[in-house]
């Protein structure tokens, strides 16, 4: 097995991190493991390391081999591979397919829950989001998927709380 970073030396360090129900795996050679501080538990976070490795590959696959380029800012998947950062807010749309897998391993969920700019909190876009959630909840209950239903209920609660809560110390 090759090292996932230098892709030259054989991998001797194998990392698995489980957070909740998500598993991340990484295989490194001795030198790269040392360079990334894998032996120092204080300075090491697998998520930081995963970034820019897995995601770039996923974007590549999603693009079917052709190089994607953001129409707004000209950022390419190769740029993402290099920096692990995106070019502009629009890039999230351009690279959405490849990013969704990455977001799943990186975060608790793939949809935003929490604060939103006030102008959007009352807008139709926001109301639409609530509606989608409620529809998904109904479907989940119908199909007796109670785990998902409970999660959706929490999301809806957070969304409505956020949109109606006065700006004070209640949170």
């Amino acid at each position, binding site marked *: 097995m090759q090292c996932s970073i230098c892709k030259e030396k054989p991998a001797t360090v194998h990392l698995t991190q489980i957070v909740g129900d998500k598993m991340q795996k990484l295989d490194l050679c001795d030198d790269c493991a040392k360079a990334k501080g894998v032996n120092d538990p204080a300075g090491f976070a697998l998520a930081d390391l995963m970034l820019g490795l897995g995601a770039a590959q996923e974007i590549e696959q999603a693009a079917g081999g052709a190089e994607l380029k953001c129409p707004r800012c000209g950022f390419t998947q190769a740029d993402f591979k290099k920096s692990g950062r995106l*070019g*502009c807010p629009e890039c*999230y749309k351009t690279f959405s397919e490849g990013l969704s897998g990455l977001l799943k391993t990186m975060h608790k969920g793939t*949809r935003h*829950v*929490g*604060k939103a700019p006030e102008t959007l909190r009352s807008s139709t876009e926001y109301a639409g989001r609530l509606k989608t959630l409620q529809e998904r909840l109904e479907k989940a209950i119908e199909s007796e998927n109670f785990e998902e239903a409970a999660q959706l209920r929490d999301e809806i609660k957070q969304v409505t709380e956020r949109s109606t809560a006065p700006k004070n110390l209640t949170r």
Partner: protein
Amino acid sequence: MNDLHSFLSPPAESARRHGPHDRIVMSSRVRLARNLKDAAYPGWAKKVERVKILDTIRPAVESLPEMKDSFSEAMDNLGQLDKQILVERHLISREHAAKNTGSGLVLNREETFSVMINEEDHLRMQALRPGLQLKQAWVAIDNFDSALEKKLDYAFDADLGYLTACPTNLGTGIRVSAMLHLPGLVLGEQINPIIQSVNKLGLAVRGLYGEGTEALGNVFQVSNQMTLGESESIIVERLNKVLDQIIEHEENARQLLLEKKPKTVYNHIGRAYGILANAHSISSKETMNLLSLLRLGVDLGLFPGIERSLVDELFLVTQPAHLQKQFSDKLTAEERDLMRADMVRERLKNVSRPVVKKTPPNTSN
């Protein structure tokens, strides 16, 4: 041009800021990442665009009531030494210290709000509090952000939330963190399992200066990693719970060490005092590690004459940039080690040797 040196509170004063549980929790911080709609992120934007973004954001930030009489400066107007001092004070990130044209900093008088413009994101605003005050810091930065959103057009997506340069910050853009002094867990060799279990909860444990830094002086930073799929209040709440537990473990570890291995503890603290009070050359790293033990000694009542703030002040003023600032000539690393030792010796001149409590009754006196 503002003078940073006269703006920042003197180290003695900043070491005297108190907060709940500050025996263990040195400070709390909540940071929000925000970006402007229709503009490339700082790492990708051309210089001209970055300058334009800075010119849009800076006046908006300055105009907030919280930022009255603030220190506001473009990063290219700050010298290397000033930037390093800001890093040592934890007011800007190391990444921001490397920025020049097109980046800026707005810092309020009380040093409780620090806004980095064009760091990795267009806006990185943080609320800072002494001790364990995560909720207060979150409420403060939440209000700050709400006021700012009326003046700036944020990049926000109903599904993905606040759009950030790095996908790791997407959604809430929040990073909640606390800086912890954990000598008991380190001496008791319990720190690694604690770090591992904290990691399992999806939280990161890092060194003194954040990402990729060593845990010098037994100081650790604990923060959330996930920003998408949970609300800010839930993230703050989780970190609070974890911190309560870490505090308890640290207190227990100290108690246990005193009961089971008092000689080891007194030996470490006594040697730390001996070296700090008598050395003629000492590196910044060694100083921090020994000051950590001195701080533990103060917490355990071994130095009745001194306050913890003296140790915290030394912790700050012995760091390279703070030390350099006190001397007009440029110092080499070796010269700094001499100056540092002189300063620490001088400050500890009137501190008596650690008072070791009575030996347990089962040993002969």
